[in-house]
């Protein structure tokens, strides 16, 4: 975060300051982001894992479904660098292929969540008492919604269609998660905006005639970004695990497809025999999550208008 240098009563320094090129908020943010080493490191890791996922057939030593008779639940060895799981499949290969499924959909769902949450959260905070009331009561209902039933029903209704088979059934699960999972982020945004609405700079902007949209986008949204980014970052592993929990009631990725959440769940019963079926996907997930945290911190710092 760039520290603002204390004002120096020197004409030259002041002129220097003024001589810096003026940039828009977003351009300036980008510039600051790439100066943050941890954030860049996080971004690189995410990109590398993303590439590995895309090129999985090339990168992975074996096919994720290939079984090795006689080699079930083996510890890491020469032919299986991260060991094998309870179905006799190679853990490393499954982690790489799993990145495709878990990550792509985990991230995709956060976009759905963000979109819905911004509309509802901002709408409630800025739209007047009646709108606020109606929207919030609507979120109460969605929050109390029987998600589990909804997911089961969605899956059964879509069974047989093309969507049902997409990513081995995982897409339907994440879709359902997204459709009911936006509530926390919406309330976060609303809470922040309710508070921000009363702040001086907003009132000032209003008084000089700035349009609603401009106020929201240029003045208020950047201040809500911090907690929202954290929420979205946590949302990715949460969605992955929620999807895996659903396999408990039979909704989940169809074997032999690999998904980090399911890999961890499957590895549970054998964890005292060999921890690798859990360690491998958990470590991958931790790495991704850590990267997202640093990237998220970087984004928050970069977008903070106060830190110019």
């Amino acid at each position, binding site marked *: 975060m760039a520290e603002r240098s204390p004002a120096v009563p020197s004409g030259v320094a002041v002129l220097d300051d003024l001589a810096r090129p003026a940039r828009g908020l977003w351009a300036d943010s980008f510039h600051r982001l790439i100066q943050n080493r941890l954030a860049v490191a996080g971004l690189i890791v995410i990109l590398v894992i993303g590439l590995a996922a895309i090129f999985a057939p090339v990168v992975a030593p074996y096919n994720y479904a290939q079984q090795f008779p006689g080699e079930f639940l083996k510890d890491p060895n020469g032919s299986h660098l991260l060991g094998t799981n309870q179905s006799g499949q190679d853990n490393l290969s499954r982690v790489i292929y799993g990145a495709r499924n878990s990550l792509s959909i985990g991230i995709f769902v956060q976009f759905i969540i963000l979109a819905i949450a911004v509309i509802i959260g901002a709408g409630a905070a800025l739209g007047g008492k009646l709108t606020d009331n109606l929207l919030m009561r609507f979120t109460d209902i969605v929050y109390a919604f029987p998600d589990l039933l909804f997911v089961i029903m969605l899956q059964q209704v879509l069974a047989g269609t093309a969507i049902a088979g997409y990513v081995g059934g995982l897409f339907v699960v994440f879709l359902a998660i997204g459709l009911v999972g936006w509530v*926390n982020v919406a309330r976060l945004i609303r809470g922040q905006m309710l508070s921000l609405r009363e702040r001086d700079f907003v009132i000032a902007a209003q008084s000089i005639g700035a349009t609603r949209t401009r106020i929201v986008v240029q003045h208020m949204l950047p201040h809500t970004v911090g*907690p929202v980014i954290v929420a979205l970052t946590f949302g990715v592993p949460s969605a992955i695990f929620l999807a895996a929990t659903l396999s408990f009631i039979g909704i989940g990725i169809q074997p032999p497809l690999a998904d980090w959440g399911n890999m961890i769940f499957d590895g549970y019963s054998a964890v*005292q025999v060999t921890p690798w079926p859990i360690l491998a996907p*958990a470590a991958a997930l931790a790495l991704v999550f850590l990267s997202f*945290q640093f990237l998220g911190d970087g984004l928050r710092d970069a977008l903070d208008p106060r830190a110019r």
Partner: protein
Amino acid sequence: MTGYIVRRLLWLIPIVLAITVITFALMHAVKGGPFDQGDGKSSVAAREALKAKYHLDKPVYVQYFYYVKNLVQGDLGPDLVNQGTSVNDILKANWKPTVALGLLSAGYVLIVGMGLGILAAIRRNSFLDYISVGFATIGASTPNFVLGILLVTVFAVELGWLPAIGWSTGWTDWKPVILPTIVLGSLPAAYIARITRASMLEVMSQDYVRTARAKGLREQVVIFRHIVRNAMIPVLTLMGPITATLVTGSFVVEFFFAIPGIGRSYVQAIIGRDYPMIMATTLLYAVVIAMANLVVDVLYSVIDPRIKYS
């Protein structure tokens, strides 16, 4: 303010009604029922008899009517799995451990999570900050039962300091409470730690903070009166639903530690298609969430006096 609270409480009625309709519809739309072939020895005749006994042979809207009629009288219906016991009795017998566990975990989340978040923000980019990042990473990438197995293996099996399963039998029996509380609260605590930190940083760069410092106030006063109070909004926003979730959604932890609560009831009811129990737990969840959100909204205006409700 009282008017506001009363109005919100009145809103509970249409919300609950809406939830009953949605849940009822979804429940019956899903394949499979409570009395299906293959469960036990049942012959076709036996299964039909059971369905008739619980009015499951009637059209759905008739069943719904019976349900609401009983609901307004406080009768949540008979349990279809433990036949002979009512849902009311089951909830009455098992609510305490779930609520206790939920509240204890919420306390853990608040103290550990918020504490770590505040420290991480104040000592930004220091070792403490990285610990908080690490804490969050582990909390989020390890599903709670995996953490549970780790803790149980170390503290119960190897060291024998704490029990592997079970819940406390009275106020002084504190040992069984520890591991479940930590396991249940690990993810929300990590989440709150990060949210607190983010929110604190956001607030710390505000002008009024600089003003307070310039005024010469002690750092501690600056932190607690000005920073934390303002940074609390998002944390509050989340503590409401988090507490509600902890109280009503402790399924995995209850299953894992064999805790006799009702957290398991919801998922088991869905799996077994135990309709009255599904309805009861969904409604309970709805009411608890709505109340939690109400509490949070009221607290908003307490913490930030500029937010007013009429």
